[in-house]
Every structure is written in structure tokens, then in C-alpha cells.
């Protein structure tokens, strides 16, 4: 209790530092830069922060970290923009946002989708910051409980809660997911240290980068589909309404349960270093199952935007905590921020909260203010971004293609990746035409590697015994949840059969 009171004193002091006019200005600049970085697929938060890192050496450590974290927030916000407008997720955790966000944009509700996305991001992030403020030391302890078995259980839960959510036949979902796993397996086998499935082609050393796959499958695939349908965006009829923000806000409170659930999922996934991507997929999958409008998910349901965005941002923010307290970055962007901290002689780890309390609480205070500044800034841009859809498709399509190509190139500075992007584009088009869902494929590419790694690490540690996944209450309960989630369609069917058979004799 005493410690919490002490933390609040530090936090109050932190607000004093963060609300300095110069720092507020830095926040605004950081958010704007971040949004631009987030909008350009491939540039990504990590690259953006890395490029701008040297610029901050002339500032005090606090100002510098405020600028850099605000770029991070901005990139998180910005990732939603391209997902909604063009079906191109700029960051892995924006993939789930495209499922309902883009259909909304196509039916002329881009403004609503963007407002919902930004607002949810803010709520998720805010929830996570409050959690960090209140229970930081406990949370760091919880994160330490996660060994390979627990991590695998979390990935298993993410996959399981996703199975059965697509409208397509389960067999097609599984085929799509298996293609994803196969693609994820290309490259270096982390456990044996040997190459696999590269067929001696040096370009394949790195495996298939998630971003290349996503830009191709979603971005290029979408353009091909739209071309076939007759060279126009259906979203062009959208009216630009400056009041769209207020109108959307009025509808949002009724999704409070989804929001709260997604906040909790996000915080949990952010702390256990699973990260924002499984959080967004899981929140979407669960919302689809629990929501009254679940059947309509995928056709432009606003709740389908709220759930993944809230969870992704709660996770992205909560991930700052393990970084500060344990020195393990939860995302590539966080890794670059970590490098920044080191240059200022701030060594993340258990002692950072004790020895550099002023810095840490200044940073946390700047998270509060940065997110508020960010929300205001991005909301004012909603009408602007929504109006992009009024540009004729024949003009915007080549621009998107060029941006996609640049994005694919910047991931590894490699022309081969641009070719791969095109191949993925055609694959995405074919899969869509034959009604194979893309989401399981993407999920498998993103998480397949990590899940496999955790699985094999667990088995190495247990000497090959699968019992390791039931070896303590924590891992058992996550695995149990996963099994229930994965088998839910069967369980639900069983229930309805039971009810049906018990109803008949009556």
C-alpha cells in the first residue's frame, strides 16, 4: 500500500515533467511522424524509431524517450488506417482489424470504422497504462512464470479460439492454416540450427516475412479482386461528415463488455510476452463467438473493429512493462526503444524501477498524455483519411501498388521480396476466389514459428514427455481453455442436440 502511495507521488511528479510545453510539442510531432510511419506498410514502427533515434541525442533522456514512445503510439494508431481503407495491415496486429474494418469502408462507413478503431486503441492503451501504474511490480512477477510450455499454451489458445470462426468449411480453414504453417517453417530451424525447405536458394534463408505475405495476400489480392469487379471502390459513395466522430461515439458504449474483455486479453497477452498479434486475433475470435451479432462478423460489424483494436493496443502498451522491468522487448519496435534506453545509460531490468524511478514514472506519465494527444490528433484526421476513398480507383490503385512494392522492398532491402509479394498477391486472389479463408493462413505465418519453437523447447526440457503441458496449474488451465475454445463448435452442437432430444419427448 505504502509503495502504491509512493508510486503516485512519482507519477504526479512525472506529469509535471511530461506536461512541459516542449514535451507536449514533442508528443504531437512524434504522434504525427508515427502515424505517417504506420500508414506506409513495411516502414513500420521499428524502422521509424531506428531512423529517428540519432535525432534525439541532443535532448534530455526524458524528452527523447517521450518523442520515441510517441512515434510508437502514432505507428500503432496509423496501422489501423491502411487496414481499414485498403485492406493492407501495416503491422501484424492490424490484420484482425481488416476483417470488419475494410468491409465497413467498402460499404461507405470508413469514417465510422476509423473512429471506432482509434477510440478502441485509446481505451485499450489507457486500460493497460492504468494497470501498469497500479500493479507494475506484481505484473513483472507474473511474466516470470512463463516458460516455453506456458508460452506454447498461450499460442495454442490463440489458434484454438480462432478455429471455427470463419464462415468457410472447417476443412478449408485447416488447409489454409496448414499452408501457413508450411510457409512459416521455411528458413532456419531454430532448434537444430540447420536450414530447411530452402532448396539451396539463398533468398529463402530468412523464410517468408509476415509483412511480405500480408501485403501480397491482402493488398495486392484486394486490388486484383476489385479490378475484376469493375475498377471502382464501392466506398466512393461515402459522405464526408465531420460529425462522424460524435455519431460513432454514441454507438460505442453498448460494446462495453467486448471492450473490457479485449482489454483484459490484451493486458494478459502483452505481459506474457506473446504480444499484440495473438491478442488481437484472440479478442476477435472470442467476440465473434460471444457477440449477439457474431454471425455478421466479417461483413462490416463495428464490434469486429472494436475487439481486435482494443486488445492489440492494450497488449502493445502492456508489453512496455516486461521491457522496462525485465529487459525483454515485446516487439521489434520495443527492441529499438530498448537500444535507445541503453545509450542513455538506463539499463532496463529489475533495478530500473528502484534506481531510475523518476525516469520510469515520467515515461508512464507521458504514456497517459501521449495517448490523449494522439487520440485528439488522429480523430481530427478521420474525415481526411476517409476522403481518400473518394479518389477514383484507377488513380489510387497504382499508387497503392507502388506503396506496397516500396513497403515490401524496405522490409529487407531486397528485390526478391517484391517478387514474392506479387506471388502472394496471386495466391491471395486464388484463395479468395475458391473461398479459402486468408486469416488462418496469416495467423499461422505470424505465430507458427514461435509456437513451434515453444513446443520443441518444452519437449526438450521435459525429455520428450507431453505431460509438460499439464505440469502446473497455470499451464494446465491455459491448455484447458484452449481445448474448450477449439472444440467449442462440437460442444455447442452437443448441447443443442441434447436440448433438442430432451425437448422432443416433452
Amino acid at each position: 500500500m505504502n509503495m502504491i502511495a509512493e508510486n503516485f507521488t512519482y507519477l504526479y511528479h512525472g506529469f509535471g515533467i511530461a506536461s512541459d510545453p516542449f514535451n507536449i510539442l514533442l508528443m504531437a510531432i512524434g504522434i504525427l511522424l508515427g502515424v505517417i510511419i504506420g500508414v506506409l506498410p513495411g516502414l513500420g514502427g521499428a524502422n521509424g524509431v531506428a531512423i529517428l533515434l540519432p535525432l534525439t541525442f541532443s535532448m534530455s533522456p526524458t524528452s527523447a524517450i517521450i518523442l520515441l514512445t510517441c512515434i510508437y503510439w502514432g505507428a500503432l494508431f496509423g496501422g489501423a488506417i491502411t487496414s481499414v481503407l485498403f485492406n493492407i495491415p501495416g503491422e501484424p496486429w492490424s490484420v484482425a482489424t481488416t476483417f470488419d474494418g475494410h468491409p465497413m469502408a467498402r460499404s461507405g462507413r470508413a469514417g465510422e470504422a476509423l473512429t471506432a478503431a482509434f477510440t478502441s486503441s485509446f481505451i485499450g492503451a489507457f486500460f493497460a497504462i492504468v494497470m501498469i501504474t497500479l500493479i507494475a511490480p506484481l505484473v513483472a512477477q507474473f511474466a516470470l512464470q512463463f516458460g516455453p510450455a506456458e508460452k506454447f499454451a498461450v499460442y495454442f489458445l490463440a489458434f484454438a479460439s480462432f478455429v471455427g470462426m470463419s464462415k468457410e468449411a472447417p476443412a478449408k480453414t485447416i488447409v489454409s492454416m496448414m499452408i501457413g504453417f508450411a510457409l512459416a517453417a521455411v528458413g532456419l530451424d531454430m532448434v537444430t540450427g540447420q536450414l530447411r525447405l530452402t532448396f539451396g536458394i539463398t533468398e529463402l534463408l530468412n523464410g517468408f516475412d509476415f509483412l511480405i505475405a500480408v501485403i501480397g495476400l491482402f493488398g495486392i489480392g484486394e486490388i486484383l479482386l476489385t479490378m475484376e469487379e469493375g475498377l471502382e471502390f464501392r466506398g466512393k459513395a461515402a459522405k464526408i461528415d465531420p460529425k462522424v466522430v460524435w455519431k460513432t461515439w454514441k454507438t460505442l458504449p453498448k460494446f462495453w463488455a467486448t471492450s473490457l474483455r479485449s482489454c483484459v486479453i490484451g493486458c494478459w497477452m502483452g505481459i506474457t510476452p506473446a504480444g499484440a498479434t495473438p491478442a488481437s486475433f484472440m479478442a476477435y475470435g472470442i467476440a465473434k463467438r460471444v457477440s449477439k451479432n457474431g454471425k455478421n462478423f466479417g461483413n462490416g460489424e463495428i464490434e469486429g473493429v472494436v475487439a481486435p483494436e482494443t486488445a492489440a493496443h492494450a497488449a502493445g502498451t502492456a508489453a512496455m512493462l516486461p521491457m522496462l522491468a525485465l529487459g525483454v522487448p515485446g516487439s521489434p519496435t520495443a527492441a529499438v526503444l530498448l537500444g535507445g534506453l541503453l545509450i542513455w545509460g538506463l539499463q532496463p531490468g529489475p533495478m530500473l524501477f528502484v534506481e531510475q524511478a523518476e525516469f520510469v514514472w515520467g515515461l508512464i506519465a507521458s504514456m497517459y498524455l501521449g495517448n490523449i494527444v494522439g487520440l485528439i490528433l488522429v480523430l481530427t484526421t478521420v474525415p481526411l483519411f476517409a476522403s481518400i476513398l473518394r479518389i477514383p480507383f484507377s488513380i489510387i490503385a497504382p499508387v497503392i501498388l507502388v506503396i506496397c512494392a516500396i513497403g515490401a522492398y524496405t522490409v529487407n532491402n531486397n528485390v526478391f521480396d517484391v517478387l514474392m509479394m506479387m506471388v502472394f498477391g496471386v495466391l491471395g486472389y486464388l484463395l479468395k476466389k475458391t473461398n479459402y479463408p486468408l486469416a488462418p493462413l496469416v495467423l499461422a505465418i505470424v505465430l507458427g514459428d514461435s509456437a513451434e519453437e515453444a513446443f520443441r523447447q518444452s519437449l526438450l526440457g521435459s525429455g520428450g514427455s507431453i505431460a509438460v503441458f499439464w505440469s502446473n496449474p497455470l499451464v494446465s488451465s491455459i491448455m484447458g481453455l484452449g481445448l474448450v475454445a477449439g472444440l467449442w463448435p462440437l460442444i455447442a452442437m452437443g448441447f443443442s442436440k441434447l436440448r433438442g432430444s430432451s425437448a422432443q419427448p416433452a
Partner: protein
Amino acid sequence: MKHLHALGLGAVTALGMTALSMLPAAAAWEPTKPVEFIVPAGTGGGADQMARTLQGIIAKHDLMSTQLVVINKSGGAGGEGFLDVKSNKGNPHKIVISLSNLFTTPLATGIPFNWKDLTPVAMLALDEFVLWVNAQEPYKTAQEYEAAIKAAPDNTFKMGGTGSKQEDQIITVAIQKALGKKLTYIPYKGGGEVAVQLVGGHINSSVNNPIEAVSQWRGDKVRPLCVFDSKPLPYTDKIQGDMSWSSVPTCKSAGLDVEYLMLRGVFMPPGVSQEQVDYFVELFKKVRETPEWKQLMKDGAFNQTFMAGDEFKAWLDQAETTHKGLMQEAGFIAGN
């Protein structure tokens, strides 16, 4: 004759003048566009931290007229990064930082490159390896831990490390050989993750580099037992209680005859001129004088050996032979 002589002298002077004016011009080769700094490893690891610190120092002290841009190419255990540099023949605007994967990756994966395909610039430092256990374990000294391993059946103790068939596993194999007992080696993606897994009690020990585990040590979460070097570290600043890096004994003195140091060096593509190499050697000499670099060396308890030119090449030759021997013994060579 006199005239001719004067002419000859004039010519010689002119030649000399040209040579003189050429010399500073040649030595003063400078990058004309941003220099790519390839890191053949992921973000957040030891090599990445060093590269980003270098980027920071060079930008802060304005040591280079253009920018240094750090790019991670970690595919194929770093093979992607090395191949990229190898294929950029004669490009002076690209440098790469190396770790032990310079030797281990081609041996373990068969990816076609060798350090001789690159132009060695300088050894910046050597990274130490320390044997760590969780601070709650009862083992206060390396001897106690060795005795526990020897007393238990094979594969009872779990050693966590970065990557597979790379430096951490090479050291683990050497420890196994020295103790005559098998350890279960569990590979993780990065050193920071290994340190956290050790704190969480999911592994029994690690051979983390000092910088990867120092913050956990300061928080009294992990305990160093011994250092895999021939002599104790020189750094005497107190880190945990009364302990400093210098109070960690060598493994050899603790009855574990294993030594290993890892190269942190810089290379350029093949076919660059000596002037271009000299430019970067001078650049890194300047970096070594900055307080930020000295701080990094102290924080990470680095071995501050600096080498360039033939001395460095000879060292590389020696290190390659050592690695080949170690990996052959461990059965890590590709195709085995």
C-alpha cells in the same frame, strides 16, 4: 646538363608533390552517402546493441560526414547478412558487425561464405561468457554446481542459450566434456530471453554474456559462478553487494577448464581499397575514445582488445581453426 639536371629535379619534385598531394587525398577517403551497418542477428541482442550504440556515438559526436544506418539481416543464423556483404563487392558504403556466427554459421548450415570472402576492418572488443545460475539456487561457487551436475544422472540440468550450434552450445558441449555429464541444452532466440528464463527458474543455468545478464545480477536475481576467460575481469565497480566483475573467478581456477571469447569485429565487402578500410579503422579508433563507448565496455565487462590489419587477420585464422575443431568434436558440422 645542368639544365637537364634541373629539369630532372623539377620532375622529381613535381612527382613528389603529386605523391604528397595524393597521399592526404587518398587517406581522406570519406563516405559520400549513408553507410549501411549490417547486423547479422536480430534486434535487441548483443551485436545489435553494440551496433546501435556505435550508431548513436557516431551521430552524437559527429564522427562521420554521412549517416550510419543499422539494418538487421538475421536470416539463416546471420548467413543472410554475411551473404549480402559478400555480394556487394567493392561497395565501401557497407560494413557488417560480426559475432561468432562468422565462423559457426557456414560450418553448421553450409551457407557458402567464409570470413576470407570479406575484408576485415578491426576487432572492436571481445565479449566474455559467464556461467550463471538463479540466485535462489544453493550453489555459491562453480565447484558446488559442478559437483551437483556430476552427482545427478545425465540431462538432469538444463542449460539455456542463444541459438543452436552457436557459441552458447559450443561452450555447453565443452562443459559436458569437462564434467563427463550431459546437460539438456535448450536454444532460445536471444540472450535477453535466456536471462529471463533463468530468473523464472525454467532453466538451471546459462552462459550469458555479461551485458545480457548484468541487470538481473544487480537485482540479485541471478548469480555469476565463473568466467570463461584465462584471467579474471579487470572491472572493480561494485555491482551486487560487495561483488564486482573482478570478483568472479575464472572457470579454469574453479576446476572447469573451458575458455571462450567471442569476436565483436567489423568487416567490409570484398574488393574495397586500403584507404577505405583505413577510414573505418580510424573511425572506430575515435569511437573508442568517447565516454559512451568506455561506459559500454564497463557495463558489458568487455575484453577491450583492439586489432586491425595483419594482426587481426592472423587472429581470425586462429579463431577459425579453433571453431572448426570445436564444432567437429561436437558433431555440429553440416551434413553430419
